[in-house]
């Protein structure tokens, strides 16, 4: 009896061993996978999530490109080339907007003669407007560039340009128009600056991961930066990104206090930014998130504030200019900064007052400035980390 048992036991054991052999391999694989998952989750925890938010055309993508240039390998030739169609598209769009604008102003304005082009220019204008209305833009040839330049130099178009705030004229207009010859060259390869000026409406979400190598040269923080589209229809995609964010970089273009939205020509852009900022601040998932407010497009603001008073924007209606020149620019800027500060503290519930909130003056096109500004942002976030870890 016992021997039978022993024999069978032997059989049983050996059968298990056979199973265990196959199992072992599977187990090993599972273990490997789980280990990897654990590793990655751990690594993810150390990655700080940064969100670039803001209204349309506030400069988010430009900041994104700058970070790419500063802390990653920058743009290689293939990538630079990929921007050529974008730049050419910008050129066509610009001239079309100007031409159509001049026609509209010529019809509606009392002083319409200043917006009327000469006949030959009108022909050029019609042709370019037609090209600009297509979905597919032709390559910018020397001839086309010449025609565009002729049209650009027309006083009526220049006059229309001065009214650019009423049209949806992109901020890169001047820059590209000044550089037409270079852009239309057959062997044209865009420079870094060209790429920074190029305007594409972002749709969806784009991300990069980088590590700012600081003065200390040790492995710095790892950041993952997300760029989003700013227009109203894009904003519903934002909410998916809101969890676990270390810091929100909110871009507000302070030069657009006299402009209206692309998606709604009745709404003032500054008011839109104000409401958007308010909305973002009140989001429940941002309770502990640091807020970095980038008051962007200062270079355009500098020139505009001396010509167009701030109180054309309803939010700034209590502004009183005090002097002229550089002092006035500073005073204007401080006023805008104060308004945003007030907005922040009004929208912040008392339990959130410990949130980090900082305001930076930026010009996204200036690489040095962005680098310096980001260094400060990095310092602040590091300090915040130490503080939260209880080390400060």
């Amino acid at each position, binding site marked *: 009896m016992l021997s039978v048992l022993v024999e069978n036991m032997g059989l049983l054991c050996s059968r298990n061993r056979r199973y265990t052999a196959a199992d072992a391999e599977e187990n090993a694989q599972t273990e490997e996978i789980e280990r990897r998952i654990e590793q990655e989750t751990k690594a993810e925890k150390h990655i700080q999530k940064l969100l670039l938010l803001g209204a349309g055309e506030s400069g988010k993508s430009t900041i994104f490109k700058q970070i790419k240039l500063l802390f990653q390998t920058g743009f290689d030739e293939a990538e630079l080339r990929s921007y050529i169609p974008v730049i050419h598209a910008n050129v066509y769009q610009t001239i079309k907007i100007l031409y159509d604008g001049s026609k509209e102003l010529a019809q509606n304005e009392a002083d319409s003669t200043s917006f009327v082009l000469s006949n030959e220019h009108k022909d050029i204008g019609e042709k370019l407007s037609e090209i600009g209305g297509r979905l597919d833009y032709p390559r910018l040839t020397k001839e086309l560039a010449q025609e565009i330049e002729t049209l650009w130099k027309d006083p009526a178009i220049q006059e229309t340009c001065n009214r650019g705030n009423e049209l949806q004229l992109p901020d890169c207009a001047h820059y590209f128009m000044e550089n037409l010859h270079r852009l239309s060259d057959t062997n044209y390869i865009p420079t870094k600056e060209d790429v920074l000026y190029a305007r594409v409406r972002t749709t969806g979400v784009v991300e990069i991961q980088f590590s700012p190598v600081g003065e200390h040269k040790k492995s710095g923080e790892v950041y993952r930066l997300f760029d989003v589209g700013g227009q109203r229809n894009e904003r519903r995609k934002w909410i998916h990104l809101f969890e676990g964010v270390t810091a929100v970089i909110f871009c507000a273009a302070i030069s657009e206090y006299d402009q209206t939205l692309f998606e709604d020509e009745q709404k003032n852009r500054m008011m839109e930014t104000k409401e958007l900022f308010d909305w973002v601040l009140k989001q429940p998932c941002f309770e502990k998130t640091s807020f970095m407010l980038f008051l962007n497009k200062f270079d355009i603001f500098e020139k505009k504030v001396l010509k167009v008073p701030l109180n054309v924007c309803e939010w700034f209606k209590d502004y009183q200019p005090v002097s002229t020149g550089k002092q006035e620019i500073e005073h204007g800027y401080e006023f805008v900064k104060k308004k945003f*500060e007030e907005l922040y503290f009004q929208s912040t519930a008392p339990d959130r007052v410990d949130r980090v909130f900082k305001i930076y003056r930026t010009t996204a096109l200036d690489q040095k400035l962005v680098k310096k500004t980001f260094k400060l942002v990095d*310092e602040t976030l590091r300090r915040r980390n130490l503080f939260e870890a209880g080390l400060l």
Partner: protein
Amino acid sequence: MLSFSTLVDVLFFGLLFKSIINKSLVTCILSLSWSIECGKKRKKMPMFQMQTKLDVNGGGGQVLDLETAVKDGVLGGDVGGLVVYNGVAEKLDLKKMIEELETMEVPSVFICPISLDPMQEPVTLCTGQTYERSNILKWFSLGHFTCPTTMQELWDDSITPNKTLEQLIYSWFSHKYFAMKKKSEDVHGRALDILETLKKVKGQARVQALKELRQLVTTAHSTAKKAVVGNNGVGLISSLLGPFTSHAVGSEAIGILVNLDLDLESKRNLLQPSKISLMVDMINEGTIETKVNCTRLIEKLTNANDFGSENVSSLSLLVGLLRLLKDKRHQNCVLVGLCLLKTICSHESVRKSLVSIRAVPQLVELLPILSNECLELALYVLEVLSAVPEGRLALKDCPHTIPNVVKLLMRVSESCTQFALSILWAVCKLAPDECASLAVDAGLAAKLLLVIQSGCSPVLKQQSAELLKLCSLNYSVTTFISKCKLTRTIQ
């Protein structure tokens, strides 16, 4: 002073003096200890006696330490009291030196037992005790004929000038004076060097230079401060502050500036928005020391005139100050924060801003735990806030206002009572029905009666009377008196 009884002694003492002149410490100590040993065997040497007389005078200052005295060359090494200074031999005035070295710890044997000041003309009595000539003469002129320290009757009225001690005192002071002058020259030189370095370096080197300069300015004599101020150091350091300055650089720079005397031009320079923004940032995020320094500096800047203080008071600053006040571990933070709040809340816009960031409830809740100094400031601020309608509303809405403020009446000082009264008046005037009962429940009436009966100013008494009347409006006389919880005698 020393008696040469044997040839051996002569030899050893000779060796001693020779080694002193050669400043050879080892030989000197050896010879000294040997001679002390010799001395012990025969009779007590005066030098050795000096060592055993520990702290007879009971004053501060160590007994003259022979080793260091020899090392410093105080015992000999100088020629007849002349100190060679910068190659020029000067006969320094002892009185002047004593004045300048006031803070130094003078050896107790140099101190006159009567005045506890260093002696300039020591004289010895027949008891062997030494005093300052003018002091002991004054003692005698008052009719006493005793030795002040030993209380013995004097058998001999001679006063012997103690030339040795005089020489020693002079030597000691000269040395210390010389050393101090040299050190302060060094400090001056070092400060100038650092300023030069600051013009060139960046990054970590800049932080280090600023750290060292700060060390000099806070510890060394006023020489460092004078050096910095006199060589446009203030302008240089201010120029390092800007929108892109790191906190490391900023905190050191502010640490230096807060210790210096700033003229009007420098203050105006520092009041630029970008520099103030930096300071506000550091108040919000820096270490305790940095926060205190920045707050103090801003207060210094806005204290002089009224200019700029309104512009300085951004919401971020106010929020930062309120955050400072929450720090219970560091009381000096609270004091400094309140000082600045007091200075800037003279502007109406600032008052409104303060109310909007909920300063009123925070201050009210802070009242019970503040020190007396802070209380006066806090009550001042609350009183100022009660002058604006939003402030009054906030005071009324905060449930702890009345109890906390009533407790402070007649507790600390007259001005505190005055502020407290104004606050209570503002609140009760706004909502007499609800506030009056709360106030009376908190014991207001009894306190008001106390004020009226006390030695306070008539204005205060008048205010108290009016407030009392206001509070008693809703009550009948009997209920009111019972609520006052008065003792029978006063009733």
